[in-house]
């Protein structure tokens, strides 16, 4: 490989133009000069630009994120590391995190989504955990938008292509379509791994003189300035950014995963970190920051796959499937042997130093010399102006009296089941391997996925939720609802929450209206987390999700993990046997604001989202959990988009066997569409044997949860007296074929 020498690489001069093109404000540049006590050279400017980018520094979100509760009795590691860690007993811990890959996925859907999965997998195994389950949370534009089928097919194939090949099951996720995402899709990827509690590794560069070892794929020019790209809004120019999207190689990732886990069994490793956003620069600088040390890199040793790469390019490359290790001095050969066995490069590229400086040498010459703290803890932090926009009043205005109730509510239910936001997502899930590792107890499509933990009686439940429309209408309430719904989904399978990871997807933080949405959502999430006792252990923020000045709906996605003490006791959402009694836990109100019904049938995204009483929420969830503990529930299903009508239909048709009918008669007196399709929170439909009804009543009463017997399972029709009477076979056929058909029609 032809390498440059220092002489061939004269640093280009730093001009006002280069400063601006690296995204610095004048004030930020002045600060750099102040820190260095001199002008930075071109390479240093690049290093600052990625480390101070919104994506790496969290400069606009930091002050708000501090509000979130991050502690809990079982939390071993909260935010700040590669991923969060929670103790699950039996000497085991789960390690999990969610991350966004929105911008690359819009530009190049297959590779963008694939490398999103690759990145989050590395965040997990870098901590010594074997990844055992992935989820994803996706948002696309309207299903009939010309780009949607292309983007959706590419993203799904990319997620599958990468995850399947690495052998990590994708056990669940969510998919939501809305015009708001037409020009800025969201791809949030989550992975959970399992580790022995006493063999957890962190990204710390400790021990002066210890070698820094580069392992994995070689470095190319791909992804340079990816972190900066993720910190800018989209414009028509974005299409031209396609070459900055990294290309994934899941096979190398698989080798890297196995090699790292093998190495971690031995006694060679001090610290380890994925080279993710901002590549070698951020991994080295962040490890030094956590270790309270400095690092010295010899860039002449970095394995390259392209000719003539400059130090600037090597430091900023976001080539995939690379890790940086800090090994114990003298163990270099042992490390190399492990990676050789897996046919991977392992090269000493530097060492840990005492001076707390980030230094890089190239061909003997020092090209970067920056204090580590300047790149990490002392990066700029902003309290950006935030202001509720005037237009919010108009958005929330909804006069139900002007909304005409459809004459045929059965037809309305059919249209809702045909909505891609409600319809079965099997077309997506069947492209993901959800069996590998043979742990999957409840596969994608239920309220939450359930996996068992081998060698124990325990299980884990996983879900991801977040309704951007609710957050757009009322970001504070929307933030609470995202947390509450995730916890409720866990309760429906019988799991108690142990922690969550989130992606906060918003428009530009430089807009006061967006910052207002952001701060409101975070406050809502905080209140939800505190009330339901769920710590936030990891996550990320993705700003600048806007195109030509129009931001997406504010969209927090909440991936929550729950524990089942006995996995064999889990419950699924669909009805099991004719004759079972159908019970509604919770209380329905006349609430149609922000509902899927209002959007699909009346074309409106208006009003205020359903209100939530967190005490009621807790009572309903606890009642469901206790009834599952006692083994009396045959099914439990959360009411969400589409309300009671859709939830009942799903109870009838979403099972793996033949659909089952039901006859119900809810007692609430309110207009029919609100009774059927209102999205009041804190509601769960359960089914059970009649003889167990009194036991359920006792539990609900003790917890303070309202409950009403609404009907009985059986027959071949879904009857909601006196509003609806439809054959379940017909409902199933609409619901299960809609997504595929609509994608075909849209092409």
């Amino acid at each position, binding site marked *: 490989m032809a390498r440059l020498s220092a002489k061939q690489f004269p640093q280009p001069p730093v001009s006002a133009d280069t400063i601006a093109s690296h995204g610095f404000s004048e004030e930020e540049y002045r600060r750099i000069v102040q820190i260095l006590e001199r002008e930075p050279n071109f390479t240093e400017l690049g290093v600052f630009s990625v480390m101070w980018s919104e994506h790496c520094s969290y400069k606009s979100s930091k002050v708000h994120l501090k509000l979130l509760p991050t502690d809990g009795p079982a939390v071993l590691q909260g935010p700040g590391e590669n991923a969060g860690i929670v103790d699950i007993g039996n000497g085991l811990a789960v390690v999990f995190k969610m991350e966004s890959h929105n911008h690359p996925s819009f530009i190049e859907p297959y590779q963008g989504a694939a490398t999103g999965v690759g990145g989050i997998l590395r965040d997990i195994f870098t901590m010594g955990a074997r990844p055992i389950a992935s989820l994803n949370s996706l948002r696309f534009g309207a299903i009939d938008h010309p780009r949607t089928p292309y983007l959706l097919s590419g993203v799904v*194939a990319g997620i*599958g*292509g990468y995850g*399947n*090949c*690495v*052998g990590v099951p994708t056990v669940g996720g969510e998919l939501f379509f809305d015009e708001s995402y037409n020009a800025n899709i969201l791809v949030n990827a989550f992975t959970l791994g399992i580790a022995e509690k006493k063999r957890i590794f962190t990204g710390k560069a400790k021990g002066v003189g210890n070698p820094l070892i580069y392992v994995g794929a070689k470095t190319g020019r791909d992804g340079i300035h990816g972190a900066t790209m993720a910190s800018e809004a989209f414009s028509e120019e974005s299409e031209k950014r396609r070459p900055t999207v990294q290309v994934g*190689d*899941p*096979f*190398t990732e*698989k*080798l890297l995963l196995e090699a790292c886990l093998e190495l971690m069994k031995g006694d060679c490793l001090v610290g380890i970190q994925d080279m993710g956003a901002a590549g070698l620069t951020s991994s080295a600088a962040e490890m030094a920051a956590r270790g309270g040390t400095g690092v010295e890199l010899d860039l002449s040793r970095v394995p390259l796959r392209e000719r003539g790469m400059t130090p600037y390019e090597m430091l900023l490359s976001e080539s995939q499937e690379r890790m940086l290790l800090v090994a114990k001095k003298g163990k270099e050969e042992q490390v190399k042997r492990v990676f050789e*066995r*897996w*046919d991977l490069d392992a090269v000493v590229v530097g060492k840990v130093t005492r001076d707390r400086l980030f230094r890089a040498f190239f061909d003997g010459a020092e090209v970067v010399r920056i204090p580590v703290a300047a790149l990490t803890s002392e990066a700029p932090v902003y309290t950006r102006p935030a202001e509720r926009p005037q237009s919010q009043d108009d958005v929330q205005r909804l006069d139900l009296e002007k909304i005409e109730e459809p004459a045929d509510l059965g037809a309305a239910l059919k249209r809702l089941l045909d909505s891609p936001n409600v319809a079965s997502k099997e077309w997506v*899930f*069947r*492209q*993901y*391997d*959800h*069996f*590998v*590792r*043979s*742990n*999957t*107890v409840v*596969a994608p499509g239920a309220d939450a996925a359930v996996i*068992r933990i*081998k060698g124990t009686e325990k299980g884990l439940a996983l879900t991801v939720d977040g309704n951007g429309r609710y957050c757009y209408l009322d970001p504070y309430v929307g933030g609470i609802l995202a947390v509450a719904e995730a916890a409720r989904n866990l309760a429906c399978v019988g799991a108690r929450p142990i922690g969550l990871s989130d992606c906060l997807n918003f428009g530009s933080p430089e807009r006061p209206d967006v910052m207002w949405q952001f701060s409101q959502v975070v406050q809502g999430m905080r209140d939800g987390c505190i009330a339901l006792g769920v710590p936030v252990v990891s996550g990320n923020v993705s700003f600048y999700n806007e195109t030509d000045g129009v931001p997406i709906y504010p969209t927090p996605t909440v991936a929550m993990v729950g524990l089942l003490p006995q*996995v*064999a006791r889990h419950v699924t959402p669909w009805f099991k046997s004719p004759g079972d009694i159908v019970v509604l836990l919770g209380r329905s109100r006349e609430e149609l604001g922000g509902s899927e019904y209002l959007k699909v049938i009346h074309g409106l995204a208006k009003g205020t989202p359903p209100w939530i009483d967190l005490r009621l929420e807790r009572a309903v969830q606890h009642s469901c959990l206790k009834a599952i503990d006692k083994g009396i529930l045959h099914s439990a299903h959360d009411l969400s988009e589409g309300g009671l009508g859709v939830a009942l239909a799903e109870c009838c048709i979403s099972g*793996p066997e033949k659909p089952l009918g039901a006859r119900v008669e809810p007692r609430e007196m309110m207009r029919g569409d609100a009774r059927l399709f209102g999205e009041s929170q804190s509601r769960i439909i359960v089914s059970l044997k009649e003889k167990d009804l009194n036991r359920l009543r006792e539990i609900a009463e003790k917890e303070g949860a309202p409950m009403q017997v609404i009907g009985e399972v059986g027959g071949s029709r879904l009857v909601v007296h006196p509003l609806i009477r439809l054959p379940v076979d017909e409902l199933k056929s609409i619901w299960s074929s809609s997504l595929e058909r609509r994608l075909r029609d849209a092409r």
Partner: protein
Amino acid sequence: MRWGVIVFPGSCDEQDVYDCLKNNLRQKVDFLWHKDPLAGKFDCIVLPGGFSYGDYLRSGAMARFSPIMKGVVEFAQKGGLVLGICNGFQILCEAGLLPGALTRNASLQFICRRVFVRLEETDTPFTCAGKKGQLLKLPIKHGEGCYYADPTTLERLHKNRQILVRYVDAKGRTTPAADPNGSLDHIAGVCNEGRNVFGLMPHPEDAGEKILGGEDGLKIFSSVIEACDKRGKRAWLD
């Protein structure tokens, strides 16, 4: 008896096979590294699913050149039992131990779901514990599972009764809708003429416990155990 499960670079289901044999059937199992020669006494060698070498060229095309494959071919020629699951099936076809080839699914998409297969023959070590016509519910998960063989080969497969499992619907009928990947003649798995090498696309190891949705997959493994018990211990490699 003793099982060997080969680990190729990019294998994904080796642990699933190992755990299924060990935890559900109390078997002795060893992992075998693809770079090592095949050594030791084994009754059945399993080539597990996954994406060996990333399957970047053609599924299984690279793995057949792994050092261990020389020993696997010799083992099979001596009558040793070889079971290829999914990617393992693809490797066995590439290695010439099984006839035919596996091509892109007709849908051009990766497909993961449970299917029914029908046991077509029971006079093999891989199916002897089952009944002819019996249905097994097994998971599939592959992008290249569409079985193809030229007409002469297909005729030979019929004549020698080498088609051991076919995709069927819940009632046991072969229909186009029940065939998930467009396989020729709905073929889900075939054996060689000697009936000691078997490859199939579905994953019996992921259907070994009720809590995972069924235990029909055990039928394949317990057939091997039964056959080995009958034929005496370690009949094939000493």
